[in-house]
């Protein structure tokens, strides 16, 4: 049994840290884990995808169409973009944040409306939260990645809150631990 999770967003939003926290939590739980990241050009404001897979024995580090159990998204349009990677009935946890992609900025396209409804119609379960606002409440908008991990933790009962927070502790600098702990809890109880 393998759990496959995609973390998607816009380059620079902090998906690398989110994937490392998730990978660490799964590793500490004794699972085999693989994480695939994106570096280089795509990071410059482009659409970025990180894959996290864990289970008894994981071979492939990537996820293709129909392979994901969960999508964690930092941005609404990016959640919609990857819905075809989700298994039927799979769960999306997404921030309600909207960032205009360059074609919208350049005026050649409109930011699509009704995305949550479209994702639901595509066969996904969708959980939307204002991760940016909660992160701000925790002390920094940069912590929206940990807010999302807090919310997502509800869907993985096999990993306890304490285990998650221990993974957060292992992955963030000491001086930001209190902020990130608060961000995780705000996400969890949102």
């Amino acid at each position, binding site marked *: 049994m393998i759990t496959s999770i995609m973390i998607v967003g*816009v380059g620079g939003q902090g998906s690398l840290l989110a994937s490392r926290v998730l990978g660490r939590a799964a590793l500490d739980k004794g699972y085999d884990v693989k994480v695939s990241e994106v570096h*280089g050009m795509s990071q410059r404001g482009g659409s970025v995808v990180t894959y996290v897979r864990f289970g008894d024995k994981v*071979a492939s580090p990537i996820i293709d169409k129909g*392979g994901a159990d969960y999508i964690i998204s930092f941005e609404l349009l990016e959640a919609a973009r990857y819905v075809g990677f989700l*298994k039927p009935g799979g769960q999306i946890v997404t921030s309600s944040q909207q960032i205009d992609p360059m074609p919208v900025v350049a005026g050649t396209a409109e930011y699509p409306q009704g995305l949550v409804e479209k994702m639901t119609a595509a066969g996904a379960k969708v959980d939307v939260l204002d991760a940016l606002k909660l992160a701000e409440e925790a002390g920094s908008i940069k912590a929206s990645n940990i807010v999302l991990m807090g919310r997502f933790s509800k869907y993985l009962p096999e990993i306890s809150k304490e285990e998650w927070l221990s993974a957060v502790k292992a992955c963030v600098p000491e001086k930001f631990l209190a902020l990130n702990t608060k961000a995780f809890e705000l996400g969890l109880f949102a």
Partner: protein
Amino acid sequence: MKELMLGNKALARGLYEAGVALASSYPGTPSTETTEEAAKYPEIYCEWAPNEKVAMETAWGASVAGKRSYCAMKHVGLNVAADPLFTISYTGVNAGMVICVADDPGMHSSQNEQDSRHYAIAAKIPMLEPSDSAEALSFTKRAYDLSEEYDTPVFIKMCTRVSHSQSIVETGERSEPERKPYVKNFEKYVMVPAAAKKRHPIVEERTRRLTEYAETTDLNRVEEGGDNSLGIICDSTSYEYVKEVFGNRVWVLKIGLVNPLPVQKIRDFAAHVKRLVVVEELDPVIENHVRSLGLAVEGKSLFPAVGEFSQEMIAEALGEKPAESCTPIENLPGRPPAMCSGCPHRGLFYVLKQNKCTVIGDIGCYTLGSTPPLSAIDTTLCMGASVSGLHGFNKVGGSESEQHTVAVIGDSTFMHSGMTGLANIAYNQTNSTVVILDNSITGMTGHQQNPTTGKNLYGDPAGRIDLEALARAMGINRVRVVDPYNLAETDAAVKEELAAAEPSVIISRRPCALLKEVKKGVPLVVDPDKCIGCKSCMCLGCPSISFRNNKAVVDDTQCFGCNVCAELCPKDAFRAI
């Protein structure tokens, strides 16, 4: 100790454990972190070389001097280093020498998707291909042992998915080999024809012995399957996808030593199975070898020679049921990468576009100047090609071309291989205008120092090459520096230098906005009463500016405060927040 580790970091751990003393590399995605991670071990001296050829020759020098050495590059970087490569194959090594080359199938961050395995065959150098982080570590250590045993440089071939995936590794201790004495040896190290003629047969004999090794080494491993209806030969990350699909249901020959390939081992494997398939990304390197043995095999008839593979693709191609999925949502706007808020390149490209310049481009973040709405770049080829390409373009185009055409090249790329192009302009004389986009860092690969920044890989003070003095020393009389945040100044410089009847260099100088030491300006807001919705600011393609209800709106969380948009506004609608 068990750790979750990035493939590149695991490779660096292998360098540490193998007792490597020196690493010299040029940054290139996806290879960069191998050297950055190696630099975290004080026992390994690490440096960024100006280019891959210099890096490889530096590593070779260290090997000849008696210490284990390393150099890393992306696939296209190996083209730059190909000259020393083919002859280091002849000289062999003293202490072990490993060359990491990282391919980028799918071109996540590259201009082509060439298959580096061809180089191993052509240069007659053994190549190991790890499939995950644990192998990146263990293969690296074995590569050094092979290098010394067979007196040859050894390739470690990575790819994006092995370099940038994390999986579990177990780390070990460092061994500290004694420095091997350097002994003068004309026939081994002086590759004049008389000596090289004696080395070539040694290389051929080495390949013969390595082929024997390939027959027995556990780097090439047969994994028995439940039934023998299908046997798959695979390497690198394809192995992981195959195992994901089939587990232990089919026979697998996992290739870890991809050059030289075994012969008898493949014949024996083929004899065990009813259907023989090779699964390999990019070119049919293994498949062609298998076919050359006279065996019936399928490969590229089932799988593409372009892009990356996945477990789902392999499953479908081999007749497994495709996975069901949620229905994809069609016609969503794409999100290509774009220049960052506050990027100093933006102002320069705006000016070039306004002047209707033909822009011969180069490799770096500024390649994004080719994307809409700026669409300011006409060509992108390889590192350094902007400067030399411009010279050829102008030689044929004459003065008409010289007055409208520029090269754009970053500071690091200029040091890499733009300098020699400028030498050609200075020597063979075209009235060319070269713009060096000096953002004081190697940007695209994630902020590495270079010879113009005054800092070494560790961020410590280092030698610094003065770009203005360098250009002047080459005989360029017209050298000027502009601030690309100042559009009027930049525009005047571009107009004057294009008109000048001699070669010129414009240095467009502003540090990358993402550098930690660069202070953000005050974010701007748009006064909606002043904004007339003319979209003058929108043509910059700044991710902080959007257009809503017929007015420009600034996202103040993203805005860097560079003020370039304000310079364009005819109604003075932008003000500091």
